[in-house]
């Protein structure tokens, strides 16, 4: 059995602190160092040099959502493989059979996804 204590999380806490501090510092520095010239042209949305037209608040296609939800499902599948990978030698061939059953069931869904062309991006 592995041991752990709250003190083990000190490096992670330090990393969070450095990441947040660095982001904050850079945001602060841009305000201090950077020049500020607020003209009408500089403040308008940059659209590759073309005159901006319309509104940015247009509803997106549901295809983005479909891709995202498929990503989440396979993301969860991968997460279940981490405990297996950490115990690969202990579990032996039985673990391989267990996880391959798990993956096989999800592969059915994967082939359903491919056969329905869920990721095809036709308009």
């Amino acid at each position, binding site marked *: *059995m592995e041991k752990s204590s709250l003190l083990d999380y000190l490096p992670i806490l330090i990393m969070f602190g450095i990441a947040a501090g660095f982001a904050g510092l850079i945001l602060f520095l841009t305000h201090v160092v950077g020049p500020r010239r607020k003209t009408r042209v500089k403040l308008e949305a940059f659209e590759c040099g073309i005159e901006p037209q319309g509104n940015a608040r247009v509803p997106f296609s549901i295809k983005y959502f479909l891709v995202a939800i498929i990503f989440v499902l396979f993301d969860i599948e991968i997460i279940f493989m981490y405990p297996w990978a950490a115990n690969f030698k202990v579990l032996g061939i039985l673990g391989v059979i267990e996880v391959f059953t798990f993956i096989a069931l999800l592969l059915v869904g994967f082939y359903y996804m491919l056969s329905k062309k869920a990721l095809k991006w036709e308009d």
Partner: protein
Amino acid sequence: MLGYTITQWLFGILSFLAVMFALLVVFSKNPVHSVLYLVLTFFCIAGHYLLMNAQFLAIVHIAVYAGAIMVLFLFVIMLLNLNEQHEPRRTSVSRIIGVIVAGLFLMVLVGVLKGTEQLQLTNTANAEAGLIKNLGQVLFNEFLFPFEIVSILLLAALVGAIMLGKKEVKENVNENRI
């Protein structure tokens, strides 16, 4: 420190932050800000998982909820029409329905919490049960059947998402024929 252990201090701070960010989720006007506050709430809850010796669950919670599920939430917000003239009017009927639903949910929560009064939590018989190696040994032996059931659950979710998501394309094809 005032008669509390460091764990109790952490619990108190994390709980306060979680409740505060949860309230900000509800009260912020901009839906994108709500999602960002929800991410912070999830980080606080991940801290609670760490305090309860569920280390693997804490990391998974951040990766899946704060990462992936929040992307889904953002996509849902972008699917909606956020222009102000399309803002749905909140009638008094919808407000009453909202109060009734929230009240019922509160009753369920209170009922569940009352049930836990009799439940004696045997605190950390195995404090390292949440580490990935120990968790894997339990998952692939005692909880093997629920683990395999999870794959069927994911399969059902995948098929359901494709069924609902591809419906739009079918309709478009029909429209083109007409």
